[in-house]
C-alpha cells in the first residue's frame, strides 16, 4: 500500500502489538501516515483502522477533530499563521494580507504549484516573538512583510534547490 512504507508500517504494527490499548496510538499512526503523504487520505484512515483494529469511523472521529491532521490534500509546505491575540495585536493581520497577496491564495487554499498551503492556527506558543508562523513545524517569529518574503523564498528553495 502506498499510504505507508513497509518499514514504518512494521514498526507501527510492532508497537500496536506491544500496547495493551492499541487505540492510544491513533494520533501517532495518523501523523506517520501524514508524514509520508503530507495528508491523510481515506485510504490512510482505513489503513490506520486496520492497524489499530478499530473501525475507520473511529479513526475518522479523531482525525477530523485535530486541526493538524490534514484530511484534505495540502501543498508540500503548510504555513500555519498564528491569528491569536498576541500576534494579532502586533500586526498579524498585516502579515496575513501580505501572505495572501504574495501567494495569491486565501486561507485554506493551496498555491496552484502545490507548494504552499496557507492555514490559520491558534497560538503557536511564540507570543514573545509575535507575529509568528510555522512552516512544516519550523517556527518563524518577529515577522515583517520583508521577512515573510525571505522565508517563502528559502522554503521554496529547500524543496527545489
Amino acid at each position, binding site marked *: 500500500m502506498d499510504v505507508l512504507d513497509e518499514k514504518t508500517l512494521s514498526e507501527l504494527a510492532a508497537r500496536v502489538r506491544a500496547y495493551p490499548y492499541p487505540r492510544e496510538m491513533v494520533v501517532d499512526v495518523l501523523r506517520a501516515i501524514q508524514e509520508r503523504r503530507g495528508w491523510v487520505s*481515506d485510504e490512510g484512515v482505513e489503513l490506520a483502522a486496520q492497524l489499530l483494529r478499530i*473501525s475507520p*469511523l473511529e479513526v475518522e472521529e479523531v482525525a477530523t*477533530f485535530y486541526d493538524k491532521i490534514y484530511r484534505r490534500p495540502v501543498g508540500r509546505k503548510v504555513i500555519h499563521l498564528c491569528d491569536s491575540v498576541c500576534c494579532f495585536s502586533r500586526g498579524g493581520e498585516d502579515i496575513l494580507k501580505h501572505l495572501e497577496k504574495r501567494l495569491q491564495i486565501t486561507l485554506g487554499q493551496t498555491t496552484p504549484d502545490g507548494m504552499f498551503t496557507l492555514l490559520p492556527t491558534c497560538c503557536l506558543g511564540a507570543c514573545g516573538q509575535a507575529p509568528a508562523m510555522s512552516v512544516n513545524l519550523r517556527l518563524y517569529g518577529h515577522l515583517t512583510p520583508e521577512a515573510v518574503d525571505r522565508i517563502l523564498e528559502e522554503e521554496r528553495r529547500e524543496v527545489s534547490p
Partner: protein
Amino acid sequence: MPTLTIDGRTVSVPEGKTILEAAEAAGVRVPHFCWHRALGALGACRLCAVTVLDGPQKGVRMACLTPVQEGMRVSTLDESSWNMRRSVIEWLMANHPHDCPVCDEGGECQLQDMTVAGNHAVRRQRGRKRTFHNQDLGPFIEHEMNRCIACYRCVRTYRDYCGGDDFGVLGSRDRVYFGRFRPGRLLSPFSGNLVDVCPTGTLTDKTSRFRARPWDLEEASSVCPHCALGCAVIPGGRYRELLRVRADPRPQPNDGFLCDRGRFGYGYANRADRPRQARLEGRPGTLAEAVAALRERVEGIARQHGPEAVLLLGSARATVEANALLSLWARRLGAADPVFDLAARRDGAARIFARAAPALRATLADVRQADLTLVCGADPLAEGPLLALALRQAARRGAAVRVIDPRPVPLVCEAERLPLAPTLVPEALRFLAGGNGAGLSQEVLQPLAETKRLFDAARRPVVIGSAEGLGPDGVRALLALVAGASRPDRDAKAALLLPGPSSFACARLASAVPNAQDLRRRLGGGKIRAVVALEVDPLAEAPPAVTGVIEKAELFAALDYLPTATVGRANLFLPSAGPYEQDGAFCDFAGRLRAFARVLRPGTPILHTGKGNHPPRTFSPDVPGGDAAPAWEILAEILGISGGLSGARAEIEKAFSFLQGLAGLRADARDERVLPGGEPPAPPGAPAGPEPAGLRLLLSDPFVGWEPLSAHAAVLEVLRPEDAVYLNPAELARLGLAPGARARVEAQELSEIRVARAADLPPGLAWVVRRRGSALSRLPAGEVFACRVAREEGA
C-alpha cells in the same frame, strides 16, 4: 433515601439519583435533550438547568448531573434557570432549519416542544445558518444533518448501547457531524433505534418517510410478533396501512429498544398480494361461507373416517387464544392434539422448557442484570435479537459472556468462544453442573473448567440456549444446571430461544405425548384426510415426507394473512387478521402472557385501493378487503363460543387451567401473567440416532430471511443473507471448492446450489443459513444430517 422538594413537591429517591430523575419521580418535567433514561446523563445539551435554592451548591445547576441531597429545595421555574433554558433553545434554534413542515419528526419533536415551551418565537440572530451535506445511511434511516442539535444521543445509542461501530461524530466545534465514515447502510442490526432516540428530525424512519403525522397515526400498545422475546412495541398505522413500529419507551421488557427486524419488518401487513379473500376450492367466497364449510367438512371427515383422519397444525405466530381454541377443537373432535411445531427436536425441547419452574426462566431484564452469561447452541442475534442486546448490556456492566457453539455466532459484545459440536453441548452443560465430562476431549475440558469456575463464582448467571440448538436432551441438561446452581444467595436462570411469539404457550398446550414425533407415525398410516393449517406454512417448513401427505389430503384448509406456499395450495382458505389487526395475547420466551391491542382493522390499505391516489368517492359500509377476522374469532365461531374475545378467553381458561388469568389481561396496563411450571414430559425411549459419519450439515436461521413475517417485508431484502454453504477452509480445499464457487449441497433427498464460503468452523461441518423458499431450508435446524457437498459445474 434523601428527601427533597422540587417546585413545592416533596419526593424521596434513592441515594445517588440526580435531580432530574427525582423530578421525573415527582412528576415535574425538566426539559432535556441529551439525558435519556437508558443512556443516562451526559451533560452536553445544558437544557436541564434548574435552580437549587437550598442545598450544598446553590444556584443554577444541571439537573441531570447534580446528585440529590437531603433537604434540597429545587425550582424549575426560577427566573435564572428559566433564562438559561431559554438561551439554550435560542442557541440551538439559531442554526436549525425552518423546515418543520417537511420534517417527519414534526409533531413528536422534542426540539419543537422545547421551542414552544421556551417561548422562543423570534430569531434574534442575524447571522446566516449553518448547513451540512447529508449522508445516505441506507434504506432504513433518513439523515438530515442540518436539523442536528448535537445531543449525542445517537452516538451513545448506536455505539455504547447497541455496539455498532460505523456511526459516530466527526469534526469539532460548531461543525460536529454525526454520520458514517463513508455513506452507506448502517450495519448494526439495531440501527433503527436511532429513529426513536433522536430528539429532532435528524435521523428519521425512511421506510415511512412522509407517510403520516404522529397525531394521525392509530397507535396501540402491542407486542412484537417477530420472535419469542415479546418486546413491547407501539405500532402506528393510518388509512388501513401499517406505517411504522416504534419501541415502547417504558423500561420493561426491552428497555425501550428494538431490533431492525421488529421495527422495519412490518411490510408483510401492507403487501398488495396479501390474501384477503376467502377461497373455497379455488372459488372466491365470503369468510362466513368458508367458516361454515370448514366446520362441516372437518366434522364430516371426523364422523366418516374417525377423528384420527384430522390433522390440526398450530402456529408459533398465531395468538395464544387461537392456538388454545385449536386445541379445544381437537378435544371436541376427539382428535389428537394439534401439532404446534413440525420440527420434532425443537418441539420436544420447547415442551420441556415450558414446564420448567417459573423462577428458573430468565427474562430480558434478568439477562441485562446478569454477571455471567453462557450462550450455548444459540444464535441470539437471529433467534431473539434483543437478547443479544441484553447480553451487551450485561457485558457493559462487567459480565463475562461465553459462547459454546461450533458456528461463528455473531454478537454485539466481546465474548469468549468455545467451538463445540452441537451433539456435545448437552454434555458440556452436564459438565458445568458437576458432571465428569465423559465424551469431551481434553482441549475442550480445559476452557470448560475455567467457565465452570466463573459460573460457580457468579451470583446472577444466565445460561442461554435455543430450542433448535439444544434439543430435548440439551434443555434437560440446561435446566438441571441452573436448578442445581440456584441457591438463596444466587439466582441462576435459563433462557431458551423459541421460534415464535406464541411458542411457549404452544409448547405448554401440547400434551406430554411427543406429538411431533408421533406425527411421523400418523403420517405413515395414510389415514390423514383433513389438514387445517393455522397461520403456519408447512409446505415451506416441513420435509417432503410431511408435505407429501398434506398436499394429498382431501381437505387442506389454511388460515393465514401471508401469501405463503401453503395458502397457494390450500383448497379452503380463510383470511385471518395480522398480529396488529386484532386484540389477543402472545406468550414470551419466559412464559409470561402478554396481551396486545388492535392497532388497525383489517382491510386493503388505501394505498392499494386508491392506486396511489385518493380513496374512491363512494359511500359504502364495507371495507375493501376487510373480510379477514382474527383466527381466534374464526375458531370461536366454529366452536360455537360467543362473547367475543372475553368469551373465548373464559372458555379457554375453563379448558386449560395453566392459562388462568388470560381473561384479565389488559394490553395498555402491560399486564403480565407467568405460566406455571408443570410435570416435564418423560424422556423419549431411544436417544437420537448416532452421529452421521462424513460431512455433516448444520442449519441455522438468519437475522432476516427465515422468520415468516419479516421474510415477507420487502424493505428488509438488503439484510437477507447470501445463499451460501460455509465450510472450514481445509474442508473447502479437500472438496476442491474455491471460495465463491458454486456448490451442490445434498441432504435428506433435498439438494440445492449454494455459494461456497470459508468460515471459522470445526472440520467436518457444512453450515447453511436457512432462507424461506429454498429446498434445504425445509430441514429442521439444530439437527445434524449427513450431507454431500460437491462442485456444481456449468452455469
